[in-house]
């Protein structure tokens, strides 16, 4: 079982597909859950505090908007833990989104720079394309094996 970074990072469809093929999806919901269930943090709705954009400085300098850096602080543990990734480009908002295109660009670059197995797909717009979309994801996930193999690929 490998840790699979998914993007859009809150895509329930990608999350479900990764789980179905016995891998561990890395999704932003897990990070938000940690925050909203941590006692003592009171910064609704996501319990991101003004300290978080400073953590995001790890990825982007201070001239990058605080909203991008705050998102990066959420994604940081997921990027760190990623052993493989599935990226879906041009997806409609309902499929999942992080709200900010600049964040998406930066995350895409960082994941590619990690040199882990990556499946990059465009969002399907027909039934045939959707079948092929799921097929390619299954092939990718089945080919990963456990985390050690994924790392060595």
């Amino acid at each position, binding site marked *: 079982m490998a840790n699979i970074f998914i993007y859009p990072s809150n895509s329930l469809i990608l999350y479900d597909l990764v789980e179905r093929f016995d891998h561990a999806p890395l999704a932003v919901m897990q990070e938000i859950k940690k925050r909203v269930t941590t006692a003592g943090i009171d*910064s609704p709705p*996501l319990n991101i505090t*003004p300290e978080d954009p400073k953590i995001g400085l790890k990825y982007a300098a201070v001239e990058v908007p*605080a*909203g991008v850096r*705050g998102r990066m602080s959420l994604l940081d543990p997921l990027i760190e833990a990623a052993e493989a990734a599935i990226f879906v480009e041009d997806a409609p908002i309902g499929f999942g989104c992080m709200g900010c295109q600049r964040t998406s660009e930066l995350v895409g670059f960082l994941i590619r720079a990690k040199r882990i197995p990556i499946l990059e797909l465009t969002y399907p717009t027909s039934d045939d394309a959707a079948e092929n979309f799921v097929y390619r994801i299954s092939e990718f996930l089945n080919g990963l094996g456990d985390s050690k193999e994924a790392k060595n690929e």
Partner: protein
Amino acid sequence: MSEIEVAQISCGSEYTGIQGEVESAAEQVGAKIIFPDIDLEEVEAAEAKFGLRVTSPDLKLMLARAISVVEGHTTADAVFIGTCFRCAEGALVRNEIRRYIHDKSGLPVISYSYTERTTADTLLTRMEALTTIAKRRSLLAREKQTGITAGIDSGSTTTKAVIMKDNEILGFGWVSSTDVLKSAEEAYSTALKESGIERDAVQATGVTGYGRFILGKAFNADLVQEEITVNSKGAVYLADRQKGAATVIDVGGMDNKAISVQDGIPGIFTMGGICAGASGRFLEMTAKRLGVDITELGKLALSGTASNISMNSYCIVFGIQSLVNSLSKGARHEDVAAAACYSVAEQVFEQQLQEVEVRAPVIMVGGTALIEGLPQAMRELLQAEVIVPPYAQLIGAVGSALLSSGFIEE
């Protein structure tokens, strides 16, 4: 009156970690933040409907929420628009939505670009002005001062007080701000003495400025009001432009205000408080370096030519350095004074006036308006009529005295 509902149209506030600060600022002024409910289909259709294509989904959501407010699917009393500081796409959307809401809904609107350092205190004055415009329209419609009233403006640099009676200024006090209460008392006592009015005869008092909350308690004020509202009223009152459009510019000691006014009521406004290079402090430092009193700097500037001086920075440190370098090369003091005034005006023009609808006449107020080189530089930049009304330096105090007379009848 029931709680004021402020519709928030924003991108990034929850990820910046400052959403709680926005809500806290609203709560402190008796308002509640609401988010327009939007269907996914509306988000996807918003770009085409609004006519602006953007790549970030949260900006598309902003467009959809703005449409919802304008079309009446969301009921709100005022609108707060926010995006991240330094986001170019966000700034474009923020500006266009502000214009759209202002033109199509008539609701009071304010916009802000935030960082993780934005606090409720930073937003408080803006939120207070927003809710005042929404809930106190009848008070803001007041065009004449009646009875005997006092106004005190506790500013960052100076504290001002006026006594007014039957639409006339009888006396005023103007002192440097040190201790908030002591300075206010000194200015107020001077104003009372000059006007020949006994303290007990004052029927209503209004206070404004940074120290307004302390003064409100100490002077048992009828009106405790932020500067955006009182300065707008004071400006159109003193300039005798109570009807129609106007733009009020107040270059203060610590922050600047640019307010687009219609019939004396603020519409779009901005407050800048980040850079000292665009404040009265920069002019004070220039005057000190030139060895002249601040009251003489303006006249000196009028006989100088700003373009003779090379200014490499708007910064209060590096800008002054440019001026010092020019002096060391033999530059005329008049040119240096003119360059300093132009630098402040240009920075206000570039960083603040782009965010409001500049509509003539432009009314410049505050103590800096008396530095003649500054309104002159603004006139050159805007190519518009710039008025400096009488008592421009007392604007906050006069606005407070004017508005507080509305409490006499109550």
